[in-house]
């Protein structure tokens, strides 16, 4: 894997939102640090899994990379070029190469457009087709690629099931033949039997077209299945990054450990045998995070040192990085 050059590099990415607080005036505005100093890179043709619980900032990372938000700090490098400060117009040609699959198959398709219009729009917008016939032909091709039929092309989204709609969303993302796709929780709104369909489609396309994915999910078993490298996020920070096998066999960060032990296993014997590390309490509010390491309020190993400063991501060998003072 190391021999491949990185397609996406994120360095010290920061995304802060300004939120109106109680009272009037500028002083009452609070800062929500959705993503704070996150760095990782994704080699071409591989999948980087980003896991964490709701509100940890994983979705924001994906959206910021696609420049749907303007990052507060840090650098985003795509294919060797710094795209952080490009204007919408300068960035426009990159849109072809960077696409997104959304979580909610219901709200991500315009209810007034037919499948043909939804999948055809990117083709016309980026001027990849010169005639209506060419466009229709390409749409038909894409629809077949995701396992739908000709008969579906002129139907409206509400006539489809969740899994079918998600496949339409994938076809839209693939229409531009992108190099990189942000998959933002693409399976979490789907039924179990449908999740596997979508994951298989994504894997097939990766093999055929050498796609690079950022796979955002909270489902650890699926992340383990599809990813080559995995990052664990907690309250806007990346707390552990490693190649998938290394991470699952040699998890170091206490949060990663408890997250994995909490994941339900669909096997009664193993479920009975496993010892769970139950975390106390809830995730703190990102508006008012604890000082130092954000996880220290729920961590069994927390010391005074943890409250003082955020531990940096340190390499422990094997291309494995952990942000923790105690578990090295």
């Amino acid at each position: 894997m190391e021999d491949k050059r990185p397609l996406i590099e994120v360095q010290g990415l920061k995304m802060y939102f300004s939120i109106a607080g109680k009272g009037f005036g500028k002083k009452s505005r609070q800062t929500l640090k959705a993503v704070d100093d996150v760095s990782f890179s994704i080699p071409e043709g591989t999948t980087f899994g980003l896991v964490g619980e709701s509100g940890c900032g994983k979705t924001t990372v994906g959206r910021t990379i696609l420049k749907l938000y303007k990052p507060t700090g840090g650098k985003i490098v795509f294919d060797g070029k710094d795209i952080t400060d490009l204007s919408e117009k300068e960035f426009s040609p990159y849109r072809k190469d960077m696409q997104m699959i959304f979580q909610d198959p219901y709200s991500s398709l315009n209810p007034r457009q037919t499948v043909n219009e939804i999948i055809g729009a990117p083709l016309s917008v980026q001027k990849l087709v010169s005639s209506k016939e060419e466009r229709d032909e390409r749409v038909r091709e894409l629809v077949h690629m995701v396992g739908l039929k000709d008969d579906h092309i002129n139907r409206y989204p509400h006539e489809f099931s969740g899994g079918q709609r998600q496949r339409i969303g994938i076809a839209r993302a693939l229409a531009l033949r992108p190099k990189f796709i942000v998959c933002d929780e693409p399976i979490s709104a789907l039924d179990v039997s449908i999740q596997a369909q979508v994951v298989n489609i994504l894997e097939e396309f990766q093999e055929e077209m050498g796609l690079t994915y950022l796979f955002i999910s909270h489902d650890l078993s699926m992340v383990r299945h599809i990813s080559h490298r995995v990052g664990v996020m907690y309250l806007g920070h990346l707390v552990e990054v490693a190649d998938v096998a290394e991470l699952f066999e040699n998890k170091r960060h206490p949060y990663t450990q408890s997250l994995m032990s909490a994941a339900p296993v669909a096997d009664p014997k193993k479920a009975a045998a496993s010892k769970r590390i139950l975390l106390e309490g809830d995730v703190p509010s990102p508006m008012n995070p604890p000082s130092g390491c954000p996880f220290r309020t729920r961590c069994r190993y927390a010391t005074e040192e943890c409250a003082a400063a955020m531990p940096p991501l340190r390499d422990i060998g094997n291309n494995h990085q952990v942000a923790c003072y105690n578990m090295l």
Partner: protein
Amino acid sequence: MRKKKNMFPETPAPAYTMKDTDIPAELFQPLPEEEKLTDVINRPSISYWRNAYLKMKSDKLAVIGIFFLIFMILVAIFVPMFSPYTYDQQDYSAIYQSPNAEHPLGTDMFGRDLLVRIAYGARISLTIGVVTAIVSLVVGVLFGGISGFFGGKVDMLMMRFVDVFASVPSLLYSILLIMFMGAKMTSILIAICMTYWLNPARQTRGQILTIKNQDYAMAAKVVGETRFQILMRHLIPNSMGPIIVTVMLLIPSAIFDEAFLSFIGIGIAVPVASWGTLANDGMATMGMYPHLMLFPALAICLTMFALNFIGDGLRDALDPRLKR
């Protein structure tokens, strides 16, 4: 527990049960792939507007409303054209007549034919309703659309402007305008439109703000659609439904406002007849000649009913939650 018989359609008994032991052996052969009917959608494809049309058609009250409205429009157009009388033609030999063969709805104190006057009033009322609706739709959608689409400071300024307009009672605009411009239809129209565009504007802005944050609007940005394309393809088509309903319901209240202004005596001036002035005239002699009050009032009421039924039907038909 409510038991409705028709809720449980009879299903034919299954061809075979597990207890049968003499099922033809070929039935246990694998099912060919082409007979596996998966991913097949049996229902016909229905677009949003077609679905709305079908729903509207099945709504009896709305259909009655539409027919009544068409009837009223025909009356407004043709009765004054073909009637032997004009709306201001006086005939002192035939004052205060009850409905009869020559004057189907009777005559008033100057012997003017009430049917023609009501039909003429319908022209005024319907024109006011329709023009108000069109003006407030265009102005409201443009204003609210721009405000919601650009957001930020532009939005703030534009919405404060709306607030200022809305803070003055509409009656005040009407009285002032009529004083300046005279009691004409144009002045009443302008007065009514001044306040009627505010609601659609606010609503459009709200709709645009909501839809702007929908995933499909974000998806459009991801594939590179420009802001203008997003506005035209996603924001406007998806916000039209509820706005059309609002505007539709503005028609009856605009008609009513005009009738009210005329009724209290600051609306359309004599001898031109609007439903409000007719009702006002009729009220003076209500005890003696009730038909002079009754018919204009009926015209107002029935038209209000019809328009409200249509509006309600549209609301149901254009419900944003498109049910499967």
